[in-house]
Every structure is written in C-alpha cells, then in structure tokens.
C-alpha cells in the first residue's frame, strides 16, 4: 500500500521546467529518500504535495484519494527555509500552528505538553522564541512539524542547520515515528547523510526522476561484481574467473587489489582460485556502491553540478 502516489507530474516556472513527467510511489511506514542536486525539482515536488503550489498537470493521491485541503492535517512539513515567530511564546506558537493543522485547542494543548516533556523542554512554554538558544529553537521547530501526529512527514534538508546533537536526537525520533506508523520523506542533496536511514529512494536530476526503488535492491543492481582484497606479499595471476582492476601498496608488506569477477563466476570460485594460488589473504570484501557513487555514475557527462561531499 502506498501512502503517496504521484502520476505524470509537470510543473514549469516561466519556461524553466521544474518537474517533467515525474511518477513516484511512496510505500507506507517507510523512510523515503528524495535525492538530487540543488535545483533538481525536489522542493517543487514537496511544495506541490503540501498544496503550496499547484502542478501544471498530473495527479497526486494520498492513501488512494486525490490530494485535497483535508490532507493538510495528515502532513507534517519541515521546509528548508524555516523559522518561527520570534516574538511569540513557545506555547502560543505551537498552539497556533497545531490549530492551523486542524487540531482542536484541547487536543493541541495536550500534545504540546507531551512533546515538550519528551524533549525535556516543559519550562520553555512561556519563553519567547528569540530568548531560546539556536538548538532549542530547532527542537521547537521539529515539534511543530510532528506534534499533530501526521501520517506523512516531509523533511526538506532536515539536517542542514541542526547541530550534531539535535541531528542525532531527531534521527532517533524519526525512527520512532516510523515504528509508530508514520511515513517519512527526506529531501536532500547530501546523499550520504540519509542513505543509512532510507528504505526507499528516488533520484531526481534536472527535473526528471532517473531512478527509484528499494535502496538495497538498487545497490544490488549497481553492484559491479568487484571485490577488495588485502593480502601479503606475492602477486596475483589473473585467469578466466576474474580480472585485476586496481592494485595499491598499503605499506608494511600489505597490498590491496580490486578484483572483478568475469561473467558467470561466483565469489567462492574467486576465493578458491586465490587459495589455490597460495595468496596470503588478510581481508576479502565485496565493493557495494554508495548511493552517491550510483548517482554520479548515472548523471555523469550530462550534469556538471554534482555534489561531491
């Protein structure tokens, strides 16, 4: 079951195409990474889901229903550009935002209390935002995103601007929220930062989706059948099972070789061959590409603006 399905989304801003025929399916209770460089169209997609802007054409469904204003309360949104009313008290501010999401005053007050307790912040209730430290403000910001217990939580560049302590706190919260049934969409151009958390990913480049699916499966698909071997001393002679791609001296008599299986061969055959050759093996590991590697591989040559971080 998918919580969100997008079909054939198109959006153009004054001749700049922001989204071109984008299809997406986001499974329930997953953490979904929406990845791509700056300006790829991620924020446009998110704004359309949040009904801040309308798509030129295409369709979005939430739980099988066409996106409508009643879904505002089902979504929690942390925009990339974020802030709060500086002169408003924490309690008033959260109450206002919760009520805008459709909570009754009574419900909102309860939830705010519970969340502030969770973050050990109960005594902030009557403090103005401007009197809080940056880290505290970030916590309030996060509470404002999730306090109405949305089914779908959308976080645009969630860890930019959060300090490491808050970032890990929020990582834990996100995992907890998924356990409780929420679906989380991460949008980021820093692929390594959310790669570890995502169950599914979609890659967007130049306003088009170029890849999507389960993360482990994608990684599998992009495996190049290469293995890293660290060994001592004598060299390796290749045969019809594998080829030697790279070789490097690690010092203290250690060497690292990158070996590639040739068609049909298995890793056991490779190991067998190495043992037969009396190679002194220290470690043997399959090379699994990172999402970043995959992304670079996919867009190489067509996009100069690839993040290298």
């Amino acid at each position, binding site marked *: 079951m998918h919580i969100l399905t997008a079909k054939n989304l198109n959006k153009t801003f004054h001749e700049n195409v922001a989204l071109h025929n984008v299809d997406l399916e986001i499974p329930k209770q997953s953490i979904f990474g929406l990845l791509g460089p700056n300006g790829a169209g991620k924020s446009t997609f998110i704004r359309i889901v949040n009904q801040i802007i309308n798509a030129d054409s295409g369709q979005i469904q939430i739980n099988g229903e066409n996106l409508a204003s009643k879904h505002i309360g089902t979504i929690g949104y942390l925009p990339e*550009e974020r802030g709060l009313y500086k002169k408003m008290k924490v309690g008033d501010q959260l109450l206002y935002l919760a009520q*805008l999401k459709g909570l009754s005053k009574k419900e909102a007050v309860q939830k705010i209390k519970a969340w502030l307790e969770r973050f050990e912040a109960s005594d902030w209730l009557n403090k103005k935002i401007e009197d809080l430290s940056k880290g505290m403000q970030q916590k309030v910001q996060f509470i404002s995103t999730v306090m109405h217990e949305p089914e779908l939580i959308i976080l645009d560049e969630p860890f930019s601007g959060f300090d490491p302590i808050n970032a890990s706190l929020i990582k834990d919260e996100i995992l907890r929220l998924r356990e409780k049934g929420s679906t989380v969409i991460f949008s980021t151009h820093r692929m390594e930062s959310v790669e570890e958390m995502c169950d599914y990913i979609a890659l967007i480049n130049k306003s088009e989706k170029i890849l999507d699916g389960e993360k482990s499966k994608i990684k599998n698909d992009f495996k190049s059948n290469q293995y890293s071997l660290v060994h001592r001393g004598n060299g390796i002679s290749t045969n019809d099972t594998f080829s030697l791609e790279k070789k490097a001296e690690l010092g203290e008599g250690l060497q690292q070789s990158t070996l590639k299986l040739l068609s049909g061969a298995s890793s056991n055959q490779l190991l067998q061959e190495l043992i037969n050759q009396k190679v002194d093996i220290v470690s043997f590991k399959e090379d699994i590409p990172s999402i970043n590697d995959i992304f670079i591989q996919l867009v190489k040559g067509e996009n100069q603006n690839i993040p290298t971080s």
Partner: protein
Amino acid sequence: MSKIGLIIKREFDSRVKKKSFLLATILVPLLFPAIIGGMIYFAIEESKNAEQQKVYVLDEAGTFNFENDKKYAFEELNLSLEEAKTIFTESEAYALLYFPEFELANPEGIVMYAKKNPSLQASSYFENQIESQIRDQKLKESGISEKEMEGLKTNISLSTINVSDSGEEKASSAGVAYGIAYAFSFLVYMFVLIYGTQIMQGVIEEKSSKIVEIIVSSVKPFQLMLGKVIGVASVGLLQFAIWVVLIFALSAGVFAMFDLNPADMQTAQESMSGMNGGSNAQAMMENSKAGEILNIVYDIPYAYYISVFAFFFISGYLLYGALFAAVGSAVDNITDAQQFTMPITMPMIIGFLGTFMFVMPEPDGNVSFWLSIIPFTAPVAMMARVAFGVPAWELALSMGLMVIGFVFTIWMAGRIYRIGILMHGTKVNYKTLLKWVKTNS
C-alpha cells in the same frame, strides 16, 4: 475556529499585547486634552495675571480721549516730545503715543514709541482706537450728535441657513463643515498610512523569519493575507475606539475643570433633552452665537456621516492595505520596500493635498468631483466633501467604484503575495510583479 479566524486572532493578539500598543493607546488621548488644557490654562493665567500697562499719551492738539480698559491705563502728558520721551524711557510704561497737531482730513505723523517691538495685536488695537476716535471727530464735525453716533454702532454676526429642496431650513456653518471635513479626511489618511505600513512590516517579518512556508502549508496564501489585513484593521479600530472615548471623556473633564461657558452648555443641553417642548430654551439658545454652533453641531446627521465615514474608512484601508501586503511579500526587507511604497503613498498624498487645495475651498468643483470619484483618492476627498453636502448619485458612484477598487487591489495583491512570500533573495521590479500577477500557481 476557522483558519482565517485563527490568523486574525493571532495578528490581533500579537499587536494588542505589545507594550507599545498600550502606550500609544493611552498616551495619545492624554496628549490632546493635555495640550488643549495646557493652552487654556496658560491663556487664563495670562489674562488673570496681566497687569494693566501704562501708556503715555502726548496729544498736542487735544483731540483724543482714551479710556482705561483691562489692559492699558492711559496717562496724558503735557510736555514737549523730548521731555515725554525721557519720562517714558525712565518709566516702566509700555508705550508712548505721540499725536502732533494735524488736520483731521489728513492725519499724519502719529507715532507710537515702545521699548520693544509691540505685538501685532497691540499695534492693531491702538490703530483701531485711533481710527475710531478720528472717525468720531469727523462725524462730529459734520454735525452728527453723540446720541446719533451711539445709535450707529451695531454688532453683526452672520448666521447661514441651508435651504433644502423640500424647503426645510437648517442652520449651517462653514466653520463647522470645515472642521468636520478636516477631521474626517485626516483620520482616513492617517489610519490607512499607519496601519497599511503595519501590514507591510508584518508580512516582511513573516517572510524574513522564514515561518511563512510553514504557515502556507496549512492555509492558502490568500487566507493568510486577508487574515493579516483584517487582524491589523481590528487593532486599528480598537485603538481608534479607545481614543475617541478617552478623548471625549478627558476633554469633557478638562472643559469642566476650567468651567468653560457653562451657561451656554446648560441651555444647549436643556434644549436638546426637551427638543419637542423646549421652545423657550430654543429661543434662548438662538440668542447666543455659542448656542447657535451647538445647534448646528446637534443638527449634524450623525448617523449619515458616521456610516459614510465607516464605509470609506474601511474600504480605503482594504484598498491600500492589500497593496501594502503585496509590497511586503515582494521584498526581503524594509529598505527594499521603499521603491514600491512610493507609488502607493503618492495617490494617498495627492488625495490629501488635493483635499486641502481643492475640496475644502470648493467642495463642488471639478477637481473635487474627480478626486472624490477615483478610488485611490476618494476615501480622503469624499469624506471632506460629505461634510459640505454631496449629491446622492455622486456618493453612490464613488462608493461603487470604491468597492470595485478594493476588490481589484485585493485580487491583484493576492496574486503577487502568493508568489512573493516564497521568493527569497530575488531582485524584484515592476515587470516581475506583473509576471506574478499573470502567473497561474
């Protein structure tokens, strides 16, 4: 509560709870009566404390005879001019009036010596005294007796009566109409400018604190804009209501304290409370000028004025408030806003100046007509015209265009706003604004 209600409430609360609101709301009404009271107080004190000042008169022909009054005591000198001057400079007297011998037909050489520059009031007082004495002398010479002269003195104050088509007569006063025109148009002008700017600041604050994207994920940008415009207006109306009540209460207190024309007030009040049978009081009232003005003030069709005022007050505010909101959404900070606020405040200022230059001197003139019809200047100009009386069809036309005007600016502002609030760091010019208006979101 509906979402727009929540927005209005937040805008209202966040402003009313500010200390500056409390301060302005209390201080402004205190200031007005304090200034008026202060002025009255000093005026009364001055006239109380003012000693009679001595004025020497050296009249070589012996034609003049000055009577002492509250301000001046006259003393005749029968000396030469030089001696008189010495006495004057050594004394504490205010002035020395010197009359050489002169022909009545051609009075020349009259001099007033004073130690410091005499006030305009003082010199015109003496001029009047001398002129009237010379006139009396001339009349005497032409053979008119003193008794006949007494009979010639008249005091006149012109009262004007408006005759309506139905033949009904109503006392009117250009002064009262002018006062009302001034007050109403000034209030509209101030209100729109002060609270329009507040809307703009609010929008810029939301934009620069980056909260706006969170808000518009819950409400439509148009709702947010409208909520802000209405919220700020309700703050303004509350403040305005408090001012009116406080100013009236305090002014009444100040007037009571100085015991100003209690008799006139009393008769006026009596005649007002007993309008039907109080012909006696009515008659009494018409005797005094003050009573007459009170009569006119009482006769003002308040319900009409106030409803017209409310209409232009609110529609003018909506028209300009929406434009201010649009400007706020298009820029990143107050300094960038200036290039766009100019064209908004310009028609406002033109309307205000036009009201003083054209509408007040000539309420039914051509320029006045156009100023009161065009929606951008109408709120100020029409309020001034209403005080002098406006044909019903002109008022209806102006109101109709006003409604079209503010619906149009709100629509246009809404289209700029929904895009503008999400734009950061883009340099915006009029061409971009036009593009936003045309864009479908």
